[in-house]
């Protein structure tokens, strides 16, 4: 082992006004899994884009030495020819095409003017088997789940004869089970001699798969940590490198005050799938939240958490609802209407901020006031001065990093976008906040700030329902935890009694019992 496959030497890349990379060095040895960690904006993706030729030679300074030769890629094809294949965070598959077609997109096998479909599909099937997918390559991509789509991306990379595989946050949209399977797949590739670079925010994954860890911060290399010592590298150790300070507590303490009375309660809540009405997505769920309480709902992806939250929020998901919703002890007859829910002081902060949370083409100002336009208008005429004032107030309150509230939300980083989303719902002045994965895909520093906001909300007597698939987050933030699996609540625990093991055990028990 230990032949250097890739060396990036003093890479510097500047964008107008910003130095994205400043003298970055990265050394990857053949056959290892190298993790690249750092906060959002630290320069991880930029570095990988330099490597893969998306930023062509000449737009950066420094050298890329791959397999002993200095390389000057002018586009992504150049790097792929040498076996450097990058799998981006956002899946780049065409849903209406088959798996096989997707795998050979832009890389079609056949002759100049015709495609050899028999070869395409038989080769594709072969690669699918190596990544452990049982689906035929003729199946349309839209019919398989996100986890499997990620595997298709990997099979696609293999079909390009990858020698150095770069995975940019491969597990960000996968549940824990699928994530684990993916990481194990990476380990099995490593045995076969593949070299891999993984970019991820999930530090437990880093210590699980990585041989070496390179930490980037603000466009510079901080350190490279060897993960082969006697003790596995602790997460705190990595975080220290990432944020430049020791983070003794990843979750801010909340003042334990006496909880108020029950603010929201649902009983025997059942929701059916909108397209397959015979399927129950939420099955006989009962829960309550007190004033000033943070209630966690933990479940794997597909457990029905989002569906539960959205069905509470004005029945915005599902059909054939049954069950009872009580607000402050009174039964509420809900219609299928989101504005009704807002009027009843319920807010649903979506997990998919780009998809259905924010209007990316509009400014921070417009997004902030969106759910409560009434408050800044009289007789349906918007008072734009008041709107500016509100947007600025929330920019200060949530520390949204932007010079102007006229900035388009699409230009903000993930953490700041999430804050704008929270600002929008806080401005709607809800009493009950359903937070669905509020820290997905944002860096450690921004996560901490979001946690502080959650604590402030609870301290102000709001009821917070925190839905998350990150166990430490649920454990660290909640007063009480509901555990959800396959549409049902399988257990309820007090936070101080719950542990990662007991929660996972509850899920496993329920799986067997069913």
């Amino acid at each position, binding site marked *: 082992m230990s032949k250097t496959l890739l060396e990036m030497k003093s890479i510097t890349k500047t964008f107008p006004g910003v130095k994205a990379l400043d003298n970055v060095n990265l050394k990857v040895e053949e056959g290892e899994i190298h993790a690249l960690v750092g906060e959002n904006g630290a320069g991880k993706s930029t570095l990988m884009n330099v490597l893969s030729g998306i930023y062509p030679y000449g737009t950066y300074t420094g050298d890329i030495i791959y397999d002993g030769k200095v390389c000057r890629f002018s586009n992504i094809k150049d790097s792929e020819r040498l076996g450097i294949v990058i799998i981006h965070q956002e899946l780049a598959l065409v849903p209406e095409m088959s798996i096989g077609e997707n795998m050979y997109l832009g890389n079609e096998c056949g002759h100049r003017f015709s495609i050899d479909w028999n070869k395409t599909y038989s080769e594709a099937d072969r690669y699918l088997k190596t990544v452990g997918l049982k689906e035929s390559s003729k199946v349309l991509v839209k019919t398989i789940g996100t986890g499997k789509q990620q595997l298709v991306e990997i099979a696609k990379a293999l079909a390009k004869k990858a020698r150095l595989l770069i995975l940019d946050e491969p597990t960000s949209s996968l549940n824990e089970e699928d994530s684990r399977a993916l990481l194990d797949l990476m380990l099995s590739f490593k045995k076969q001699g593949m070299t891999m670079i993984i970019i991820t925010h999930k530090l437990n994954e880093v210590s699980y798969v990585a041989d070496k860890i390179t930490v980037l911060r603000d466009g510079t290399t901080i350190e490279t940590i060897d993960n082969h010592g006697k003790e596995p590298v602790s997460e705190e150790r990595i975080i220290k490198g990432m944020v430049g300070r020791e983070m003794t507590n990843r979750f801010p303490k909340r003042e334990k005050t006496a909880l108020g009375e029950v603010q929201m309660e649902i009983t025997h809540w059942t929701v059916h799938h909108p397209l397959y009405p015979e399927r129950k997505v939420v099955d006989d769920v009962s829960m309550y939240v007190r004033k000033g309480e943070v209630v966690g709902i933990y479940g794997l992806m597909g457990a029905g958490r989002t569906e539960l939250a959205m069905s509470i929020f004005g029945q915005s998901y599902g059909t054939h609802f049954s069950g009872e919703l009580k607000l402050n002890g009174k039964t509420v007859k809900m219609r299928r209407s989101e504005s009704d829910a807002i009027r009843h002081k319920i807010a649903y902060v979506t997990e998919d901020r780009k998809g259905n949370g924010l*209007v990316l083409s509009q400014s921070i100002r417009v997004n902030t006031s*969106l759910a409560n336009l009434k408050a800044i208008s009289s007789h349906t005429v*918007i008072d734009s001065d008041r709107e500016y004032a509100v947007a600025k107030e929330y920019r200060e309150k949530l520390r949204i990093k932007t010079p102007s509230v006229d900035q388009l939300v699409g230009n903000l980083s993930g953490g700041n976008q999430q804050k704008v989303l929270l600002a929008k719902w806080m401005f709607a002045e809800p009493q009950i906040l359903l937070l669905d994965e509020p820290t997905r895909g944002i860096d450690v520093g921004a996560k901490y700030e979001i946690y502080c906001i959650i604590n402030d909300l609870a301290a102000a007597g709001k009821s917070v329902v925190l839905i998350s698939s990150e166990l430490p987050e649920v454990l660290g933030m909640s007063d009480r935890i509901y555990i959800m699996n396959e549409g049902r609540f399988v257990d309820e625990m007090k936070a101080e009694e719950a542990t990662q093991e007991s929660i996972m055990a509850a899920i496993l028990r329920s799986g067997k019992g069913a």
Partner: protein
Amino acid sequence: MERKEVLTLLKKNAMLIVLVLVYLFFLIITQGGIFSPSSFTELINQNAYVYILGAGMLMCMLTGGNIDLSCGAFVCLLGALGGVFMIVQGLGTGISILLMLLIGVAYGCGLGYLIAYIHIPPWIATLAGYLAFRGLGTSILSANSKTGSLAPFPVDFQSLFYGRVFPTEKGVFNWPCFLFGLFAASAVIVILLRVRSSRQSKGYEADTLAGVAAKGGLGGAAILLVTAKLAMDGGIPTTLLWVAGIILVYSFLTSKTTLGRHFYVVGGNIEAARLSGINTRRIMFIAYLNMAVLTSIATMTVIARSQSAYADIGKNFEMDAISACVVGGVSASGGSGTVLGMVIGATLIGVINLGMSLISLDANYQRVVKGFVLLAAVVFDILSKKRAK
């Protein structure tokens, strides 16, 4: 001012500058012909329908790049019906206008229902009208007239939609018209100053006094110039009142009201809009109901101007309205665009049309020029926006 600020200012008003340049070009090439009083009247009368339909099309496009292909054909059908009411049946002007509006509302409700609640893609739902209405209109015309056209419309109808306010002879200076201009110009300046002082008193960012002077000065001067020219050509055309009224109402609606905001948000991200408590179906419904109502008003200005209803009336109107929006910077995928932009786009196309007919360019070449100018305008707009980022 810094050089950078000047550049961003130029980029922000790129299409306005193009409009001025194109106008200057035709000013030279027509040896001042395009600057004559009658050209001003002509520009307004010829393009009234583009502004009116453009306002409706803008609202549709804002909701997500949706368009209405049927408006041109609906002009033909409604024009034919108007002819039947006023000329064949001899109904009064008021009752005829009311009937035409009611038919427009009925069509708008039907179309809006199909698009918003049955989820028929707008271009398909309106394609049906595009195909059917002209046939229907033509057959109504030929059933009621041997020549296939109905004329003339009553005088009071014509003076309402194609007349002058306080008319005077050509060449005699029309004082009411110029006073109206003075009033409008000073209103613009007063409003700008009031906005500035109210912002200052509340401690918000406000334009500099020089900025207000520039905006108000240029805007006011433009209004005075137009009204002075119109005053030399017999006074304010009633079409201008209709157009100006609609432009003002829709400017206010899109930029200042919650309803207008909802249109932008639905076009920007319909799911986010829905989850923010906005009734997205209602917005889609309103967009098409509104379009049909505006189409009805446009029909009245058009049949009044042509003084007859005929089979080819309203041909390609939908394309003119869409072009005006697109040239005016309205996003083809929805969520952005302004009434002012649409007005500039429509005026640009109008100036090019007028200029070319003044130099009596061959009609076929006119189309070629128009096509390329449209493309160039949009390319220019997109490139300048890219740089501005």
